C-alpha cells in the first residue's frame, strides 16, 4: 500500500518534470544555429520556396503559437511531423524505441548478473590473483571505446569465427516476424515465432556484448566494494562466528546486503547506456532510437529532437523510480 502510494506520487512528479523539459527543449532547439527548412530544400531553392515550406510546417507562426500547437498535439499523443522525412514523429518513435530499449535493457541485465556474480566472487577472494585479474579485466573493458570494441567483436565473431550473423538488420527477414512492439526478441516471443527468436538472439549477441563489456566495470566495482564491506561487518562476523555454513552465509547474509546499493548506480549506468547506443547502433547498423535522435539533431529536425529529449527524460524518471523501489525491496531500512 505504502509502495503504491510512493509510486503514484513519483508518477505524478513526472508531469512537472516533463512540462519543464518540453519548455526548455522547445526554446533551446530553436536557439541552435541552423535552419531545418534549408536542409530539406537543397541549394537551388528560392526564398519563396522556403517560405512555403515554413508555412507547411507551421514555422511561420509566432513562437507562442507554435508552442501552444505543440502542447495541444502532445495532449493527444501527436508529437508533430518530422521536417526531414515528413512522417509522423509518433509512429517513427514507436518504431525506433523498441529495438534500442531491448538492446540497453538486455545489456544492463547481462552486466548486472555478471557484476553480481563476479563482484561477490571477487570480494570473497579479495587481494588474491583471481580478484586482481577480474578487476583488471573489468577496467580494461571499461577503458575500450565502444565503437572499436564493436568492430573487433564483429571481426572475430562474424568474419573469423562466423558464429554470429552479419551486422546489418536485427532479425532475418525470412523468418517473417510480425512486428508488435518493435523489440524483435519480445515480438518473437509474443507471436510464438521460434525461428525469429533464434535469429533475433543471434543479431543481438554482439551489440549486447559490446555494451555490457563497456558498462560492467562500475557495477562490478560497486558490488565488490559493498560485498567487502559486508564481509568485514560485525553482522557477517557474528553469523560466521555462529558457525553457519558457507552457502547460507552467502545467500542469506551477503548477497542481499551487498546489492542494496546497486540499483541507484544501475539507473545511472542505464542512462549512460542509452547514450552509448548511438555509436553501437551505428557500428551494428541497428535502426534504433539513438541514430534517429542523432540525425534529428544534426538536421535541426525540431519535432524529432523535442520528442527524443522528452522520451529520454521520461525514461530517466521511470528508471530511477524502478531503482528506488528495488532499493527499498533490497534494504528494509529504506522507507519510501
Amino acid at each position, binding site marked *: 500500500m505504502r509502495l503504491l502510494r510512493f509510486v503514484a506520487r513519483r508518477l505524478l512528479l513526472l508531469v512537472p518534470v516533463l512540462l519543464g523539459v518540453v519548455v526548455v527543449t522547445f526554446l533551446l532547439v530553436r536557439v541552435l544555429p541552423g535552419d531545418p527548412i534549408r536542409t530539406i530544400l537543397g541549394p537551388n531553392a528560392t526564398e519563396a520556396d522556403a517560405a512555403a515550406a515554413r508555412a507547411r510546417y507551421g514555422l511561420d507562426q509566432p513562437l507562442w503559437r507554435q508552442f501552444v500547437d505543440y502542447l495541444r498535439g502532445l495532449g493527444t499523443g501527436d508529437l508533430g511531423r518530422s521536417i526531414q522525412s515528413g512522417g509522423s514523429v509518433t509512429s517513427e518513435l514507436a518504431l525506433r524505441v523498441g529495438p534500442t530499449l531491448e538492446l540497453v535493457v538486455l545489456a544492463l541485465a547481462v552486466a548486472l548478473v555478471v557484476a553480481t556474480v563476479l563482484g561477490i566472487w571477487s570480494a570473497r577472494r579479495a587481494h588474491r590473483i583471481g580478484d586482481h585479474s577480474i578487476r583488471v579485466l573489468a577496467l580494461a573493458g571499461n577503458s575500450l571505446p565502444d565503437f572499436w570494441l564493436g568492430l573487433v567483436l564483429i571481426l572475430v565473431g562474424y568474419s573469423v569465427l562466423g558464429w554470429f550473423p552479419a551486422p546489418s538488420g536485427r532479425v532475418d527477414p525470412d523468418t517473417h516476424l510480425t512486428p508488435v512492439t518493435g523489440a524483435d526478441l519480445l515480438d518473437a516471443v509474443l507471436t510464438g515465432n521460434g525461428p525469429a527468436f533464434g535469429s533475433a538472439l543471434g543479431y543481438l549477441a554482439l551489440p549486447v556484448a559490446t555494451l555490457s563489456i563497456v558498462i560492467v566495470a562500475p557495477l562490478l566495482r560497486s558490488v565488490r566494494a559493498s560485498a567487502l564491506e559486508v564481509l568485514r*561487518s*560485525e*553482522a*557477517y*562476523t*557474528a*553469523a*560466521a*562466528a*555462529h*558457525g*553457519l*555454513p558457507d552457502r*547460507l552465509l552467502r545467500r*542469506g*547474509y551477503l548477497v*542481499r*546486503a551487498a546489492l*542494496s546499493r546497486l540499483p541507484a548506480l544501475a539507473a545511472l549506468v542505464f542512462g549512460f547506456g542509452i547514450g552509448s547506443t548511438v555509436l553501437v547502433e551505428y557500428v551494428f547498423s541497428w535502426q534504433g532510437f539513438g541514430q534517429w535522435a542523432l540525425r534529428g539533431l544534426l538536421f535541426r529536425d525540431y519535432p524529432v529532437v523535442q520528442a527524443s529529449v522528452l522520451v529520454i527524460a521520461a525514461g530517466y524518471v521511470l528508471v530511477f523510480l524502478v531503482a528506488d523501489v528495488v532499493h527499498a525491496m*533490497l*534494504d*528494509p*531500512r529504506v522507507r519510501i
Partner: protein
Amino acid sequence: MTPLLSIENLSVVIHRSDPGDSGRQIAALSNVSLDVNAGEVVGLVGESGGGKSMVARSIVGLLPPGSRATGRVLFAARPGAGEQVDVLTMDRAALAGHRGRGAALCFQNPRGALSPTRTAGRQLTDRLTTHQGMALGRAREAARELFEQVGIRDPGRRLDAYPHELSGGMAQRVMISLATGCAPGLLIADEPTTGLDVTLAREILRQLRHAADTDRRGVLLISHDLASVAEVCDRVVVLYAGAVVETGPAGRVLRTPAHPYTRTLVASVPQVDGHPVVATPGGMPLLARAPTACPFAPRCGHADDTCRTQHPATTEWGAGWQVACYHPQAENLAGNLAGSPATQAGGARTATQAGPAGPRPPAGPAAPVPAAVPRTVLSVEDAHVVYRSRFGGGGHHALRGVSLQVAAGETVGVVGESGCGKSTLARLVLGLVRPAAGRVTLAGHDLSRIRGRRLRRLRIRAQLVFQDPIGSLSPRRTAADAIAEPLRAQGVPAAERAGRVAAALARMGLDESILPRRPHELSGGQAQRVGIARALVGGPDLVVFDEPTSALDVTVQAQILQVVAELTGDESRGRVFISHDLATVRGFCDRVVVLYLGRVVEEGPVAEVFSNPRHPYTRALLSSVPSLGAGFAGPRLELVRDLEEADAATGCPLAARCPLVTDRCRAEPQELVGYGASRAACWRVPEMPELLRGGGAGA
C-alpha cells in the same frame, strides 16, 4: 570432571602490517589461563584494551588477521567425557562445527551484529536449522518459543521484524536468543548490558544466569560492570594489559579484592548508596611483548623495586582465589570506600589524589548556603515536545508537560530509562527543539520566542557535554580548535582565545601537548575532558551533561566524574546531569528529577530521593541498580514489564508496569504533590510504607 573450557597459557601477539607502522607488534594476551565449567557463569573484567574480547575471539577461533596465538584453548565438546580439543589447532571443518554448536559468541553491539537485511526470525531459524538439524517449519516454532523464553512479548510479530525495527533491549534479547539457538556448550557474552538502562540490564543478566542454571551451559560474561558481575557470576577473572591479575569467587573477589588493580577498579565504581568514587590516574599500557615486570606497577600505590623488575607469579590467596601480585591487600576495601581520612592516608596514592578534590558528600548542598537567593539560569514551564512523523498523522510525544528550574551554582540530575525523554529535555533546554507548548527560559530569555542569529547567540549561554566523547569532536579539527569553538562563535579575538583555551585545559588537568592532536589521537578520557573544556570555555550559564561517562571505562569514568564533581563548586552557573546510571548522579547532584515517559514522576533533594523514594518508579529504578556495597537499603520493588509495552495515554503512565496498580491509577492522571522534601506524582504515596510491608512488592 574436565572443565568445558580450559585456556592454558594463551598468548596472542598481533603484528601490525599498516604501512608506515610495519614491524610493530602488540602483545594482546600474555599467558592467560582460565577455566569455565558447565553450569557456571564466569566473569571476565578489566578496562578496555585489557584483552577481554581477544579471549572471547580466540575461543571461537576468530582472531584478527596478523595475530599469532600460542598456548592451548582446550574445549570439551561433551563436558565430562574427558575429551578436549584445542581450538587453536582445529581445521576448517572442525572449526565450523565448533563455532556456534560448541561456543557461541553473543556480540557487544546487538544492532551491529544482527544482519540488517534479514528478519530476526530468519536469523534465528538459520541457527536452529544449522545446529539443531530442524526442518524450517519446526525451526520457526522453536524460534517463537526461544523468543518467548528471552522475554520478547508478541514473538510471532517480532519474528518478521527486521533488526532496525527493534529497540536496543529487544535487539539484545534477540542476540541472546541467536547465541542460545545454536545450543552451545559455552555462551560467551561480550558486554551484553553496555548502554542498556538498569532495569533492562538486570533482565538480560538474569537470562544469562538462566542459561547456566537450567540448560547447564557454561557462560563467560565479559563486562566492565563490576557490580553486575559480582551479582551474577560464580567466579571472576580480572585481566590487566593482557594478563590475569586476579581470579576467584566473584562475590568475594569484588567485595574484598586483593590485587591493587582490582581494588582500583572497584573503587572507581560509583555507588548508589553514596560512596564517593576514587579515581586512579594513568591508563593501561599497550605492551609490545609479554611483560617482564608487573604491568600495573606504574599506577600502583604499593609498587616497589621488585614489582618494577620482576613479573609476579600467580599465588594462592584463598580457596580457589589466585592473585598475581607481590603485595596483595587484605584490608577491607569498604572502609576505604567510605572515605574516612585515616584509611585513605594509609591506603594507596589513589586515595590521596582523591582527597581534597573528591566529590562532596551527599549531604553537601546544605552546607554553604549563599546569602542571596541564587538567580535562576534555566526555567522550563510545562513544556511539551512532539516529534511529528514525516507525513502528518500523529507523532511521538517525547515530553508531556515537564517543569524544571535550575539555579546558578546548582546541579540537577535527570534520571530515567532510555526513551523517557532525557535527551529530548537536553535538546529542549539547548534550544535545539522547540516546545509544542510551554516555555523555556534560559538566562532570562524565552528560547521559544527568538529565532535566527539571536537564538544562536543565546545558545552560547548553554553548552552540552556529549555521551560519545570522540564522536562529538570533529575528526578534522585539533583539540585546540575544538575547545576554542564557542569563543570563535562569541567573536573573541584570536589573541585572547589561546589564553582562555589554556586556562580551560588546565582546569581539566590536561597539559598543552594535546592541543595539536585530533580526536583519533586522544583516549576516551582525554577526549571527554576536551569536550568538557569546550563546554566551559565560553563561560556559559548552563552546562548540560548528557550521559558523559556511559561510554567510558570505569576507571576513566571515575576520573571524569571527579572532574565534573570539581565543577559543582562553581557558583556562577547551573548544571544538568543526565544519566541512566543512578549511582553516578548520587555523587554530586543537589537535586534529582526522575523522568518517566516524558513526565516528571518524582523530584527532590538527592539524598532524600535516593534514601526515601516516594514514587514506585524511583524505587524500582533504585532496586535494580546492581551494587558492590550495600546497595539500595529500603524495600525493593520490581516493574512487571519492559518499557516499550507500556502506554502513556490515560491515567498514570506507569500503570501498565507498576506492581501496586489499582483502577484509580489507570483512570486518573497523576500530578506532582509535595511529600516532605520531595514531590512525587503518585496518589498512593501516603500508604506506600504499608503497601511495601504488606508484600505487594517484588523481590
